[in-house]
Structures are given as structure tokens and as C-alpha cells.
């Protein structure tokens, strides 16, 4: 079943005289439960694409459908609701609230939705059971990223969007985060879209979208995705 459809999406920024085309005519669709990896060099428009899909930004033209609803036609209020109920975001810099503990950070997101996942289950799933009362300053980068993943999934969203979730982590920690994400994808059935620079990660995905200069240059289905652990060499 198709959960997301992107149609002829364009986004351009006017910088004085010049027009910067961040996204040109991007079209693709994502099946429910799919693990999608978006690959591409810096400045190719990956974040722009993900932000529009996540209801954080609006396109210059084109449409995005979530299930049957066209989110590109939403007003501010409906977009906020879409972000709250449908989407979980994970950013490159584990953006957790500094004055809340790991657990409280997760609860911060849970408080605004009706059917959150049980907190213990979420914390258990990201492997932070022994760290739940620690403040971000007492956690490592990888642990902080786990907190933000827990925060994203605790709302029990249908769509999990991750913008370079391993970008600030070392290789091994990155792999373990990817393993966590793919586990959540497989076990909880969350549709997962991950932006990365690392083409190894693409081996884990069901679908790989390659971008360059704001355009989608390749959209392939990976018949045999491998486990995160197998990426290690």
C-alpha cells in the first residue's frame, strides 16, 4: 500500500538576483513499511525534500500526498497536526532538550499525542533503560541520538524521517543507530526514510533514491537488503 507520493516537487530560493533551485521536478512514491534511503552529495536537495515531506517546509510547486491527503495544501494548523500525529523526526545533531532527562525528552513528545507507545517499551527498544534519568550532558553522542529516536517513535508515527542520523557519530555508533532504525522498521512496521552520505547504508534499504543538483537521478528497489551488522567489514 502506498503511504507517500511525491509529484513534480520543486523548491527554489531567491537569493537576490540569482534563483537557487534546491529541488527540481522530484517524483516518487513510498510503500507502507518501506525502508527508503536517500543518497546524494552535499547541496543536492536531500534535506529540502525531507523537510517538505515532513510538513516543515512548503514547495514552490508540486504536490506531496500522505495516504489520500495532499499535505502541500495544508494550512499551518493542519501541518502542525500532521507533524504531531503522523511524523517522527530525527536530525543530524541529536537535538534533545538540554534541561530534560532522557525519559523526559521522550515524554515531551508523548504529551501531545493521543496514543503514544508505552514509555518503557520505547526506552527499552532504543537501549536506554539504564540511562533514562540522565541529562543530555551526561550522555554520549550516540546515546543522545537514541534519545531523539525514542522521542520520534514514542508518538507512534506512521512515518519516521531521519536527516543524516549518523552524520555526527563515529562509524560503529552509526552502524548501531542504523541497526536500531531498521529494527524499528521491521518490528514496528514504521515507514522509514533516511538521508545519508554513506552508500554502505543504502545496502540495508528496500529502496534507494539518489539525488544530484536537486534532481532524483535514480530510484531503485533493493531486492536483498542486508542487516546492519553485516555492513561491518
Amino acid at each position, binding site marked *: 500500500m502506498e503511504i507517500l507520493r511525491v509529484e513534480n516537487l520543486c523548491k527554489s530560493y531567491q537569493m537576490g538576483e540569482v534563483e537557487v533551485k534546491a529541488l527540481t521536478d522530484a517524483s516518487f512514491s513510498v510503500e507502507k513499511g518501506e525502508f527508503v534511503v536517500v543518497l546524494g552529495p552535499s547541496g543536492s536537495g536531500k*534535506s529540502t525534500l525531507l*523537510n517538505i515531506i*515532513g510538513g*516543515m*517546509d512548503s514547495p514552490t510547486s508540486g504536490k506531496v500526498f500522505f495516504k489520500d491527503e495532499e499535505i502541500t495544501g495544508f494550512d*499551518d*494548523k493542519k501541518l*502542525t*497536526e500532521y*507533524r*504531531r*500525529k503522523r*511524523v517522527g*523526526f530525527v*536530525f543530524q545533531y541529536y*537535538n534533545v*532538550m538540554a*534541561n*530534560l532527562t532522557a525519559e*523526559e*525528552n521522550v*515524554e*515531551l*513528545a508523548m*504529551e*501531545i*499525542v493521543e496514543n503514544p507507545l508505552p514509555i518503557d517499551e520505547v526506552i527499552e527498544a532504543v537501549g536506554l533503560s539504564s540511562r533514562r534519568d540522565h541529562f543530555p550532558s551526561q550522555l554520549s553522542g550516540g546515546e543522545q541520538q537514541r534519545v531523539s529516536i525514542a*522521542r520520534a517513535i514514542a*508518538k507512534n508515527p506512521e512515518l519516521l524521517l531521519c536527516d543524516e542520523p549518523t552524520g555526527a557519530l563515529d562509524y560503529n555508533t552509526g552502524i548501531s543507530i542504523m541497526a536500531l532504525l531498521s529494527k524499528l522498521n521491521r518490528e514496528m512496521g514504521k515507514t522509514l526514510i533516511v538521508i545519508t552520505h554513506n552508500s554502505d547504508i543504502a545496502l540495508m534499504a528496500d529502496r534507494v533514491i539518489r539525488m544530484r543538483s536537486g534532481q532524483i537521478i535514480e530510484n531503485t528497489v533493493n531486492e536483498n537488503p542486508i542487516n546492519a551488522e553485516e555492513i561491518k567489514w
Partner: protein
Amino acid sequence: MTKMDLMLVRMIKNSKSQFLAVLIIIITGICVYTSMSMASANLSDTLDTYYEENRFPHLFVQVLGVPVQVAERLERVEGVGKVTGSLVMDVPVLTEDTEKRKTLRLITIKGDEQELSRSTLLSGRALSDNRKEIWLINQYAKANGIKAGDEIRVQISGADYTMEVAGIVANPEYIYLLESSQSIMPDDEGFGIGYLKEPLGRLIVDEGQNYNYIRIEYEPGAKEEALIEAVEAQLKPYGIISSVKREDQLSNAMIQEELLNLRRLSDSLPLLFLFVAGFILMMILSRMVKKDRLKIGILKAIGYDNQQILLHYVKYAVMAGLAGGLLGSTLGMALAGAMTKLYLEFFNLPLLTVNFDITYIFKAMFLAALFCLISGVVGARGVLKIAPSESMREEPPKKGKRILLERVHFLWKRFSFSRKLVMKNVFRNKKRTAFVISGVALTYGMILFTVTMPSVVDQMMNLHFTEFQKMDYNIGFYKPVDERAVRDLYHIIPIDHAEGKIEYPFELSRGHREVTVNILGLKKDTQFYSFKDTSNRMISMPERGILLSENLAKTLKAEKGDLIRIRSLLTEKEDVEIPVAGVVKQSLGMNLKSMRAQLSGLEASYAMAKETVSKNKILYEQGVLSRQEYDRAVTAERELAAQISSPAIFY
């Protein structure tokens, strides 16, 4: 508690000093508000109670002399509840100190419970009927170190009297102890009130069975204007010098003015503090929002909406407001007690209980919260502009336009690098610069005002006494004396020049406008008074016509050449119409709190100034008339004119 609130609480904990700074300003403002409002409310209450308990009258009539029976008959006038008559006489006090002139106003009392303007005995004993003793007003006793049991020596009609001070009292008519509306400041050392039993008074004053001062208390629901008219009609044959309503009674008017100022101050001063606190809060919040850009972006990405995030920051402000309001008003309450006592002491009000009205706490908290809410919303409104996707990026720096000053090359060249930076900052952030400048200006203005005010007043007084009124000394007579008395003065003391003047109240009217003012009658060639017209040219006494002070001219809407109707309050004479010969400047006529009373006489020129009652304010205004005109206006007959030429001025 929601996690958002938890974040807020921890944030406040982490930046306590910042929160405290805001809190202190709010506390100060609210403390000032509560203490001043409560003190002024307490003071009014106290005053009302005092007036009620001591039967402070509604109407005060000064007459030349009215028989006791006539005065008593006034109680039959519709609306009059109670009448108390007195003999009043200002007499010199005889002391060792020859430098300082001291005057005691002797006022007779009945000594019963029912009489109006009853004194409160502060120390000493009741007056006995057959001894030569008086009660002395508290302020004078204190200033001169006189206690109950001491003796005081006065001169009455040329004879010395030694009287025992039986007690020290406070009286509602002299809470603010001023000799007359011409006195500049209360002079507790030089002017006091002595109360004596009526029989003793009659013995030494020798006024027969007359009163020269009548006080009237109204019945509830009395119609004041009609009542006054009826009373004045009955007293007219005996010469009304003045009839003053309660609101215009000198002491009461001064106190009400003081209360009004206190109320005004308690309304405006705290606002100033709250504005400052609000502004600081606004700055803090807008900086906080800027700093929290990423955090706000993430909250929005998670799904928090604008209101929730805005509220988060506004709560910070409102918490400061509520906490400051509660602490400030509690502190203010504590202070209000002390402040009320201070005021009561200052006004010599013997008293009473201090009320603590807790509604002030709620009022204060509401006020503080409201201010903080507004500044919170204004300060944190930046939240709305933060787009979640944008917040993840660096904020683009403000475009560095060239500032105007840079184009002034020869100046700009001279600036050091750091000064250039400062200049650029000043010019780029225009709003902030404007705010800082106005804040500094306001502060300096307030300081300068308080520092220079006394010298400005000095200057006005100086101007008044050197330019408009040049006499060194005034001698007032108890009764009008013949003009020959002025000539006699030359034989008694060595003087350069002396001239007489007359001063009596008249009712001036033009159309439906009318005022009662004292009119001063001067000699045509007066050397003591000089006048300037509104464009600052010296003018001399006119052959015919009346000179009006600016205020008076305004009140009557009269200009040079207009006819003014003048009615005597002392005699049953026909009204006279006199043309306005000019409008003259007054240097001191403005509404200055403590000085107001005395200004009257000063400024004008040749005529005289006097309080007039307009609505509920006392204005000091004046009209000037040449001596001949005065005579013509008041008394067609020359003999009466001679009689009223009473006070002589000389130097």
C-alpha cells in the same frame, strides 16, 4: 506538570539572577503601588472619621460681627443642622525673642460635646469656666516647646494677658496650619491657634454679644446652593467677609490636594516601574527566543503549535509578574502601616486604626500579571516567525548597510575601529537606540527636575517680591482705619515711604460667569506694586477700570474693554459696572502644591489677588482697581471708603 513547564522551571532555576532582577523591579513597583494606595486610602478614611467625630462643618462664614441670636436663628434655615459661632481674633504673642513675630489666633469655644469643629485634647485638661486659660494647638506648642501647664503671654487691644495653657489640642480646621491663603508655608513657630471659653473671650475681646465666625453643619440631603443663599441673605446686613464651603476651607483644601497628589503619585509611579520591568522582560524574552531558535524549531517539528510555544515563554513573564505582585504587595502592606503613620504625623491627625485591605494584593497581582503578560507576548512574539526547517540552519546575519555617518568622511576617518563598531551598532539598531536614549533622558529629566525645582520656585518668589511687590513690610489692621493712620506712621517710625491699600472680597460677574475674589484697591501712584501686561510691557494704574490677572480674565472670559459687574459682599450697595482696563501677568499664579496658597497676593500688581472658588478647585486670581474706582465701586459715599482703607504698606 507538563514537560514544557518542567523545562520552564529548570530554566528559571538555571538563570536565577536574571529572574531575580526582573522580580526586584516588579516588587519595587508593586510595593510602591500598594503602600501608597493603602496609605492614601487609610489617610482619607482617617480624615473622614476625624472630620465626622469632631463635627467638621460644611460651611464657614466670616462676618464683621453678627449678634448671637441672629447666628442661632440660622439653624432654622432649611437644610442647616447645627450652627456654632465663635469670636476669632489674631493677637501678637509676647516673647523674649524680638526678631520673630508670633501670632496667636484666639478662637472661642463653647466647650460642649455638640459644638462644631470640636478639638481633640491630646494632653492636659479641660478648660474651666472661670480661669484665664487656653488650649493651644499641637503644631504651635510643639514648635515652641510649650507644654500643658506652661504660660503664654499675648497682647490684646494694647493690654498684656498671661494665660495658662491648660491643654494641647488638635483641631480639624487647622490640620494644615496656615494663617491665611496668603501664607506661603505653614509656620508652626510663628502662627498658632488658641482656644478659649466664650465668656473669657468676650471679656478680653470686647465684641459685645457678637460672633465674627460662623460654622454650619448641613442636614443630610441639604441643598447647598440654596442654603448658602439663604444664610448669606440673613447675614448680609452684618457684613459677610467670606463664606467658604468645606471643600474650599484652607486646611481641608490643602489636605485634599495632598491626598490627590498622593493618589496621583501612587497611580503613576508604580506604572513607571512596571513599564521598566515590562520592557526588561520583553528584552529578556526576545533574546531568549533568539537564543532558543533551534529548540523552538525542534518543538515545532515534534508537533507543538505556536500558541503552546508562545505560552511557554509568556508563562515566564507571568510567573515573574505574579511572584513580584505577591511579594511586592505583601511588602507594600507592611510598609503602608509605617507610611500611614508618617502621614498622620505629618498632618497632625490624632489617630486611629490602620486598615489592611487585602483586595490591594489582588489588584497588585492582577496589575503586575497584566503588564508581564503583555510584555511577555510582545517579547516572545518572535516565536511565531521561526519556521522549523529554517531554524535548523544558521540565521543569516543582518545586512550591514552603510550608516549615514560613514559618508561624513572627515569625521569617520578619525574614529578608532572600536568606536566605528559602536557607531554602527547605534545606527543599525534604531529602535533599541531610541529606547535607550529616551530611558536615559527620562531619568535625567527626573533628576534635574527635583534638583532645579527649588531654585525655580526661588526665582519666582524673587521676581514676585522684587518686581511686582516691593514693600518690605505689611501692617494689617483688625478693623479698617482712616487714611490718616498712614501719615501718622511717618511720625511713629522712620520710614521712606508708606501707602495704604484696601482689600475686600467682591463678586465679579460677566454674563453667567461669576467668581468671588478679593479685590485690592491701590493708590494711583503706588510705588509698591507694578504690573506687566501679557506681552511683558509695564503698565501703570489706569485712570478708570479694573486690572484682571490672567487667570481671572480667563475665568470670566473677559478682555480689555469688557464691562465687569461688581457686587459688594459687605454692604447692600447697588452693583457697579467697571470696564477692564487691562490683563496683567502673574509670576506666581500657577498651581503649585505647597506654594499655591500664598501666591495670590504676589503677582499682580496693583490690585489684589484672592482665591476664588470654581467648581472644586481653588484658583488664586486677582483683580486690580484704582483706588478711586474702588471707592466708587464699593461705596458711593466717601465716608465708607475712608473706613475701608485699612491695611497700610510701608518700607
